[in-house]
């Protein structure tokens, strides 16, 4: 419990630093949100200044930052310049879809990648191993855009099994999750293989075999648990990345999600949305890191003693 609390407290300066970076960094980049928003409209400079004043964009930067921070601490992430609705509401609309895609994609990635890596390690340097590593390499190089469209053509148009796009039930989640999952599975497969090979070469494994344990019990009962630490680390990082939103897959499959919302906000210089979304994602990543730490302790009791 103490460890958990100290982790959470340690996240506060990290979040503060990120808030400062995002806030001031966005304002240093070229472009003005009012100019972008009003684009080709026939407005005078005075009319644009009026809009800037209404949005509070003409106040000193430090005042704007303190205002943002104070409101954020009270759960108010401001109002979107573009949409004119609270950023919190925008995030609440989009976050569930991103989270379900992230979890589903990681589930596919772990199941497919983990199993493939295990098999590759078990049959090291044989045909199965080489074949799996070739597929893993293809998966690493494959653009998600292209894979997603291929899956739509095959499963939606040719077979008619799944919808082409949209959000909703489980049906709509399968193809986008599979697209992302296959790509992430490639990394997990390679990592699982190398981690398992290392563990399988250790003395305690030789001892277990010498004691007469079945190969399955040696691999699944003993080696796997020891090999999981780096896989859990990478899995946690990938999950954090996915929570930022898989923009390309969201676009291809017309899914709700934080990714596209954030990209559009960056292009529109919609500061409140950018700040709010990044803070939200950072909080999620902090929690995921905490979860990963707890998993470490479950997987390897030696870590508790450090």
């Amino acid at each position, binding site marked *: 419990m103490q460890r958990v609390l100290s982790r959470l407290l340690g996240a506060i300066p990290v979040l503060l630093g990120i808030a400062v970076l995002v806030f001031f960094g966005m304002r240093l*980049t*070229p*472009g*003005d*949100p009012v*100019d*972008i*928003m*009003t684009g*080709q*409209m*026939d*407005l005078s*400079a005075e*009319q644009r200044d*009026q*809009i800037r004043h*209404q949005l509070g964009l003409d106040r000193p930067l430090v005042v704007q930052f303190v205002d943002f921070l104070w409101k954020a601490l009270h759960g108010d992430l401001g*109002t979107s310049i*573009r*949409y*004119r*609705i609270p950023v919190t509401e*925008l995030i609440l*609309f*989009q976050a569930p*879809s991103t989270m379900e895609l992230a979890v589903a994609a990681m589930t596919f990635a772990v199941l497919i990648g983990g199993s493939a890596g295990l098999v590759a390690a078990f049959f090291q340097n044989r045909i199965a191993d080489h074949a799996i590593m070739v597929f893993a390499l293809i998966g690493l190089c494959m653009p998600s855009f292209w894979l997603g*469209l291929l899956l*739509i*053509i095959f499963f*939606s*148009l040719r077979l*008619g099994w799944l*919808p*082409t*796009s*949209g*959000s*909703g039930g489980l049906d709509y989640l399968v193809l986008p999750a599979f697209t992302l999952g296959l790509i992430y599975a490639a990394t997990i497969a390679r990592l699982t293989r190398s981690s398992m090979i290392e563990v399988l070469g250790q003395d305690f494994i030789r001892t277990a075999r010498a004691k007469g344990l079945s190969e399955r019990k040696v691999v699944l009962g003993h080696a796997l648990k020891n090999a999981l630490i780096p896989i859990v680390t990478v899995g946690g990082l990938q999950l954090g990345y996915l929570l930022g939103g898989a923009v390309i897959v*969201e*676009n*291809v*499959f*017309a*899914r*709700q*999600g934080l990714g*596209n*919302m954030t990209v559009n906000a960056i*292009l529109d*210089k919609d500061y409140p949305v950018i700040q709010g979304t990044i803070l939200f994602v950072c909080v999620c990543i902090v929690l995921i890191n905490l979860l990963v730490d707890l998993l470490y302790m479950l997987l390897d009791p030696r870590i508790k003693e450090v």
Partner: protein
Amino acid sequence: MFTRSKLGFLIALVLISSTVLAACGPTPQPEVVEKVVTEVVKETIKETVVVEGTPELVEKEVTKIVEVEKEVEVVVTVTPESEPVKLVVGIGSEPTSLDPQGRPSATDWWVMDQVFDYLIRLDPATMELVPQLATSWEVSEDGLTYTFELRDDVTFHDGTPFNAESVCANTERILDPETESAWAAADLSTFESCEVLGEYEVAWHLSEVMPDLLQALASRVWMVSTTAADELGPLFIMKPVGSGPFIVEEWIPRKHILLKKNPDYNWGPSFYAPGPSQIDVLEIRPIPEGETRVAALVAGEVDLIAYVPEQHVASLTEQGFTVDSLGMPGIPRFVGLNVQEFPTDELAVRQAIEYAVDRKAFADALYHGVPSPAYAPASSQDPNYDRSKECEFYKHDPEKAIELLEEAGWAVGDDGIRERDGVRLEMALIIPDTSHWMQPSELLQAQLREVGIDMSVTEMARGAWYDILGGAGSYNVYPWFFSGFVSAGIWRSHFHSDYIGTYSNFVGFDDAEMDRLGNELVVATNPDEADRLRNEMMCMAMEQALWVPIHEIVNTAVAKPNVKGVIFAHNSNALLHSVYFEE
């Protein structure tokens, strides 16, 4: 801890339960009715009769016709209520706001045209002004007062009646700084006051003449329920209330906008089918990726899609889908040439670019021949198109381009790029990363290279691009277009010296004659005079080679073969009121 057998049992239980639950569901149950039916039958019976004239009694078989009652079991199957007629439309991007009096974008109009009405409409077939919520209108001789007679049978979706007071409430809302209205405020910039003359008669008073006011009203000034706007506040953009043929039920961002038919709708413009829509439910789905949008149509998940990638048009036509392409009115896609930056400050160089560009190649190579090439800054759907032909001075003629450059002293260097006094003929094209202009830029670069011009292409974030256009950096060439009704004010702003370094005179043109024409245009009340002035400006712009028009922007919508009745508005959005499914 789960053992294998327990886990297997659990999985089996889940599978069986899922199957049972999936199988269970409300299904219509047959109803048994008992009826009594009378039937006429012939019966043969034995009767005891007396033989005539004797006391003898005999039995005789007699056939009689009798009515017999019998109970019959009749089974009546309960049929479900008829399904609502649903139209599903896939569009290219998510709307940002459904408040037409805020800061809507082009995609927003797609939805707003189904939810709101205008005082006046532009008939897409004739481009003439026709009545809608206003039955007639009058402009005073001095052009400062517009009087509208209104329909007396219109209600907003929330039941609020539409009348003269609601028109004044609308203008008040548009001009209220709290609304942050941009489009409408620009179009009502000289609006002074709104006067209620009667329950269905209203007058607008202007401080200065606005010759394009009626066209602007018909293009982007919708009537909203200000009662609902006041009640909902900022949430009005998500759940707007108008008087149009469809009512917004819900908007789930990036999922859909769900609308239902307005059953009371009876005030459509003359080009609508009469009465309410035949579509009961309209679902608008944003599907950003063009390939996915086409896949959704082919898979039958949507009935109509907009913004169709050109490479699919031919195959969709072959598959029997209905393809409708309409050029967008306004200014076609062009590149502007900065007259304040070397070497595009030279007329000879600018004109050489005009001759060097093969406009047809853009349409053919990049867009599968769908959009028409453009030789003047007015699209074929624009009211100014016919007159704009007078300003088509340049056709593809690379030899003429070379001749002009050589006359100006630009000789071909060793690497094929022209030079003069040791200076290469180089220029910079800047494009925003959201403009899909990378491929056209590369084609333009290749065409200019053929005549010895070295044009670099730099893609940048939209914000940075606007900053450079505003004077933060140097550039020679930039892409631009304008879709929709081009008001006098907007046309002037592209060439007037007051707008250099701001919107939209990014060519940096500073000419007293052009300024004079623009100033006269914005106050010209006579349509012929306005046409003449606009055309003079256009021809001057083309003579000076300020713009290089390239191709029209075409909006293509594709629908299932049985979807009929789609009307394209003047802004090339689809109006869905009159859509029906052909049997």
